[in-house]
């Protein structure tokens, strides 16, 4: 898998929230229904920094109540209406390791 | 603040301050714990108060700095600024083992359940808690391990000693450091 990410997102890119689930460590995304999904497609998108702040606040409440660990904002863009991660780290987090030979986890 | 001493929740009769003016007000009222700086600057005046005196050492202040006076203190409080700052463990062992300090050795600051056995084994015998609710959980932690590998100040026989079949206990003060890894 080649991950070319030289493009730097503009300041006002949309953002979403990701975290890890406490019980199994899975990568999860905060949804519009204020719960969590393993699919980035389900993430709630914050179009501007103000909305992002609100989302982060919401996620930190979940973290304080347990069940999710270390929520943070990351940048996304929409491809044909579907949110995709920007930045190499988050792309790898959504797709799984790029080493690809013997992994049971679908990439 | 709630205090566990010798395995029981007790009332803390000590006042604590790092301000000499406050010492002057508090000392006539009861036992007072002073910081090392206050002690070093006002030692004679503090001794004149005639009441019980305790000392608080900050992380990084070696007991050597008060070595000659240690017998004057009924309490020495060592501080865990955060529970991940482990300097007080060495201070405690040195106080007990090198300096032969026999008074109360109190853990203050971030004193949590999962560090309690380490503290006990380094010679602490009292623990200042944030809330009284913590006390039960802390005391439970003491029972998590029956035996340990290293000689320490909890008076228990070490695993090496038990292996030899001697079951000899490490005597809390002289032994700990001096007492042999028990081989």
């Amino acid at each position, binding site marked *: 898998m080649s*991950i070319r990410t*030289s493009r730097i997102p503009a300041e006002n890119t949309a953002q979403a929230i990701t975290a890890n689930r406490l019980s*199994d460590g899975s990568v999860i995304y905060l949804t519009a229904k204020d719960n969590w999904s393993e699919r980035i497609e389900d993430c709630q998108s914050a179009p501007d920094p103000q909305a992002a702040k609100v989302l982060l606040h919401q996620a930190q409440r979940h973290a304080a109540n347990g069940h999710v660990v270390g929520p943070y904002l990351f940048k996304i863009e929409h491809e044909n209406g579907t949110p995709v991660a920007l930045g190499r780290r988050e792309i790898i987090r959504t797709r799984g390791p790029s080493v690809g030979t013997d992994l049971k986890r679908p990439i | 603040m709630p205090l566990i001493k010798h395995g029981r929740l007790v009332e803390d009769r000590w006042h604590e301050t790092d301000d000499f003016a406050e010492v002057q007000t508090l000392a006539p009222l009861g036992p007072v714990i002073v910081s090392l700086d206050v002690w070093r600057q006002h030692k004679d005046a503090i001794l004149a108060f005639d009441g019980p005196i305790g000392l608080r050492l900050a992380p990084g202040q070696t007991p050597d700095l008060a070595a000659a006076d240690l017998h004057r203190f009924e309490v020495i409080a060592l501080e865990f600024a955060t529970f991940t700052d482990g300097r007080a463990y060495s201070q405690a062992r040195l106080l007990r083992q090198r300096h032969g300090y026999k008074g109360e050795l109190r853990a203050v600051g971030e004193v949590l359940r999962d560090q309690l056995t380490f503290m006990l084994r380094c010679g602490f015998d009292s623990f200042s808690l944030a809330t009284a609710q913590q006390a039960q959980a802390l005391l439970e932690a003491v029972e998590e391990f029956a035996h340990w590998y290293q000689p320490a100040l909890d008076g228990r026989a070490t695993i090496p000693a038990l292996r030899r079949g001697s079951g000899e206990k490490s005597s809390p003060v002289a032994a700990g450091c001096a007492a042999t890894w028990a081989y």
Partner: protein
Amino acid sequence: MYRYDEFDHAFVAERVAQFSGQVARRVSGELSEDEFKPLRLMNGLYLQLHAYMLRVAIPYGTLASHQLRKLAHIARTYDHGYGHFTTRQNIQYNWPKLEDVPKILAELAEVEMHAIQTSGNCIRNITADPLAGVAADEVDDPRTYAEIIRQWSTLHPEFSFLPRKFKIAVTGAPSDRAVTRGHDIGLRMHRNADGEPGFEVMVGGGQGRTPILAKTLRDFLPVDQMLSYLEAILRVYNQLGRRDNIYKARLKIMVESLGVEALAELVEAEWAQIPDGTLDLPIEERQRIAAYFAPPSYVDLPDESSALDGAIAADASFAAWVESNVHEHKQPGYAIATISTKPHGGIPGDASAEQMEAIADLAEQYGFGEIRISHKQNLILPDIQKTDLFALWQALGILGMSAANAGRISDIIACPGLDYCNLANARSIPIAQRISERFSDLAREREIGDISLNISGCINACAHHHVANIGVLGVDKKGTEYYQVTLGGVSNENAAIGSIIGPAFDEWQIADAIETIVDVYLQQREVGEKFIQTYQRIGPQPFKEKLYASD
């Protein structure tokens, strides 16, 4: 091999119960993540990029076959069917669930294993020469001492919250296969003029953003005083090591700022005040532990094996494997076989559950059921009769583990990098895969000969790139991965830190750059010269000229 007695068993069981309680308190919300994190780290549990990661200790890199089978079982039952062997001779699982970790630890305890102190600011898993007990050049088996240190350091009351992690390595041989100068404390056994065994004590080594080789603190420490001296070093460090800046907190920074002589004065003064007899190791106790590591019952054999010689003559691929992967054994007629985890294009250090089980079988069939893990992330079968090497090699071939590349350019040490690790800035494994594919021609690898190539995905340098002949460090520049190359590092008894050769390469240039470096070596070398010898003779300039010719 060391075997737990009732006390070890009870202790590890208590630790499993304690950690299970900590997990339960975390899940119930009694512990916050901030409170839980240092506790889980002290038991080797990280939260990485995709999931939790559990690092299981393999003390001094020695495993029994039934333990390796258990590691395979855990990989299959609780993880994704594979494990990753690390440069600290441990194994990491990349996908365990928090709720399964107590069960995993209970299963490990059944086979006398644990994850105690595989992370955290405490004394980490003790590492040792992977050829301990079988190398011909050994003074004494370092595992006796590594095991004693393991026990002494386990949940040490005074040294469990140090300024930073603390790594100790022990070698019993003059040839350093344990990177002792890369550790906070390196212990190298030798004998004094009276023939008594003791340690050269080296302190303040470490990799990371400030790579420093350990300096000698004491030339000769009698073995029976090992623990009291370690206690003195640890006590000085615990009190005076910096805690204000994580990047300045390792012992190496203290050694640099104080100077090794000043540190030696502090340590000796502290040591002098530890009363005589404290922590001394009586000879009976050393003998008791040493008995666990007594040599197995070797058969008397002639050193030469006509079966081996015949197979070498008949099969060039086997001959190449013997040349690179078979090491001299101290016992006549026996050999030490390295099993490479690095097939060309593979993931360095990874082994599947099936491979682990098959290797456990082979260790029993052809050896005495013992397996070693090397800091180069390979597995080693220490006691193979020379006559059996060909059959072993054939069996390894079926497993896809017969690569004839130990010590060769495709024997790459790679950290998990950005594919797994939360700290990484760049990927390492795909770069290792790409480079090793470039060098998949056996004849070419043999032509290049002995060389080391290590790839780290960030400045923490888990893959030891600073002490590789060719070191590769992944960095991030404005969202793009770049790879900085260092040349001239050495990890053995002549340890050296490599120097940066010039501007970094991107992920598409780096394999070409490595080829260029190798080509310069092949053009410039004199007869019999290894890569590092040529580099040390000609210096970086010829490499620079070729690498940056078009600039």
